[in-house]
């Protein structure tokens, strides 16, 4: 059965299904239940934005509210994973990673290698990413490049409710540490989602729009900006864009990207992260190295500026790459090709 549900509900459903299916799945996080031990309602919050609401009622103490000690409880999730559980830990905002980064990148990510292949650490770290919430510099970052850089981690960033559900179920069943990035400005976005359980494999990008003139690669929220840009381009300039939603950043589906560029000869990468050492540079550089012959014009990168995220709405609205910026970048790839 397929219904229209929100991204938030899809996440909740994925967690519910996996907790029901597999008793080794547990959840840890700040206020993911909410109000444990307080005089009021026990299932009060269900996470800071209500994403995990209702799960405590069903799964009881397999959900644990935590003290405000990210190193301790993210590390505990990792330790429990190394001992056979499948914990899903919530790092409320990815921006908080600075207080628990070691457990993620030196412990979880490296156990298997350091221990000569003798460890498995099936932990999922769910975390909110991205700007647009007026949440300012320390609650709005798109830190996907930092995690993608690091061997031993898998990095997922879905753009819609359908993918969110399938990728999260996959993440929970996956035997490696997964950083699961949920864009807070997508939480209320709805789409058709089956009620049943299903998985989406890692490393398979989604071609969300087909076209022959230019390849636009993105992930997360900016996939929608890319699609808006593609619509404008089609309507105004009869330019047909292939729009690729990477969905998973590590592993990444190079084949789909290369195939598209072989067809279109033009590449625009749209990334909400800051520009340096970003997903944008990652994709542009890979394509330049591996599909140079196919490129008819310089690859273009559309990213956030090299600045922290500003608070004021007037500035934040300029921060996330806009559809206009994508259109302009596509224009450059076409103009240059013509000029060449």
């Amino acid at each position, binding site marked *: 059965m397929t219904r229209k549900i929100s991204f938030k509900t899809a996440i909740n459903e994925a967690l519910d299904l996996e907790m029901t299916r597999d008793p080794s799945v547990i959840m840890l996080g*700040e*206020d993911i239940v*909410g*109000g*444990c*031990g*307080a*005089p*009021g*309602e026990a299932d*009060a*919050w269900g996470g*800071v934005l209500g994403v995990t609401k209702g799960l405590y009622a069903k799964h009881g103490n397999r959900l644990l*509210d*935590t*003290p*405000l*000690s990210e*190193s*301790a409880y993210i590390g505990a999730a990792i330790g429990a994973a190394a001992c056979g559980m499948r914990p899903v830990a919530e790092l409320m905002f990815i*921006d*908080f990673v*600075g*207080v628990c980064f070691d457990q993620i990148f030196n412990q979880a990510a490296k156990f298997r290698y350091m221990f000569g292949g003798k460890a498995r650490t099936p932990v999922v770290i769910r975390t909110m990413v991205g700007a647009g*919430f*007026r*949440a*300012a*510099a*320390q*609650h709005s970052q798109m830190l996907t490049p930092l995690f993608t850089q690091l061997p031993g981690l898998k990095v997922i960033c879905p753009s819609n409710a359908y993918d969110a559900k399938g990728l999260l179920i996959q993440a929970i069943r996956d035997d490696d540490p997964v950083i699961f990035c949920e864009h807070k400005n997508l939480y209320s976005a709805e789409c058709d989602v089956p009620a049943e359980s299903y998985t989406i494999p890692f490393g398979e990008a989604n071609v969300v729009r087909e076209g022959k003139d230019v390849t636009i690669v993105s992930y997360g929220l900016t996939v929608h900006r890319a699609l808006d840009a593609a619509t404008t381009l089609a309507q105004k300039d009869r330019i047909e864009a292939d729009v690729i939603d990477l969905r998973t950043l590590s592993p990444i589906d190079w084949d789909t990207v290369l195939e598209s560029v072989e067809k279109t000869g033009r590449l625009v990468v749209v990334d909400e992260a800051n520009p340096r050492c970003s997903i944008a540079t990652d994709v542009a550089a890979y394509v330049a190295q591996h599909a140079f012959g196919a490129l008819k014009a310089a690859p273009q990168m559309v990213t956030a*500026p*090299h*600045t*922290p995220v*500003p*608070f*004021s*709405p*007037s*500035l934040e609205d*300029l*921060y996330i790459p806009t559809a206009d910026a994508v259109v302009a970048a596509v224009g450059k790839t076409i103009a240059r090709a013509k000029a060449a």
Partner: protein
Amino acid sequence: MSNNPFPLSSEDLMRAYRTMRTIRDFEERLHVEFAKGDIPGFVHLYAGEEACATGIMMHLTDIDRIASTHRGHGHCIAKGVDVHEMMAEIYGKATGSCRGKGGSMHIADLSKGMMGANGILGAGAPLICGAALASRFRGDRGVGITFFGDGAANQGTVLESMNLAAAWNLPVIFVVENNGYAESTSVEYATAVDSYVDRASGFGMPGVTVDGMDFFAVHEAAGEMIARARDGGGPALLECNVARFFGHFEGDAQTYKAKGENDYNRENRDCLKIFRDRVCDAGAATRHDFALIDLEVASLIDAAVISAKNAALPQARELLTDVYVAY
């Protein structure tokens, strides 16, 4: 006034009241304005906890530094940050303390010794150790105060900083504002101790718990600690038991609180009422004196909201400035 039994001059008493009243009105007004939908982002209100910020800050000058939290408006006001600029900042306007770039969680004014509200729990503790270290190197006798909640008290950063401050004998006061909740999670759930003061001796510093709704209790305990730190006596831990009158942030339905909890606190634990009653009962000021301040503050806050609303948003080019001094 001859019949003043308090350890503060009558001017200082009224200054303390004015500060507390300013915080209260600022926050109550934000609550109203937020509900209208005009204020962007997350807003964490300090209403209820005014005596804590004020009782401590009465001992400080601009040479002393504080590091605040996500719930920072009260600390800012008590440390002397301009109320108009604060309000404008919360509205995201170019006239704000941070020119609209920081917002509620990042208001700072280094010239007043206010090193910033902070969106990261516990992050102020190391910073204030650095401020205290700087004071020591400069010999300016400045002290540093770091505030954190009962939740943030469990951040490793805070705990490490206590050890650092003790090992280096830094003039730092660690202030736990224990309002019983971290978001929706109770302090009873998050720790296995009755009081955070139990931790002080484990790091080698004295600790005291006070009723944080009682200005005089806070003022006295903080005064001793600050004087001691200023004279090279090292750090201390002050736990203030307080109540927050609103939710964790604006929009919080507060279902985790007991029924009637807020009403009870407003009725019986309002630091402003308690202060006013004690001062009036002692005859150190009249209800009229207080009423005058109430009026003044009300119009200050009114003016701040009006000017914040009318102020311009930052211009597009501001997006790219202020990342580096030079790059």
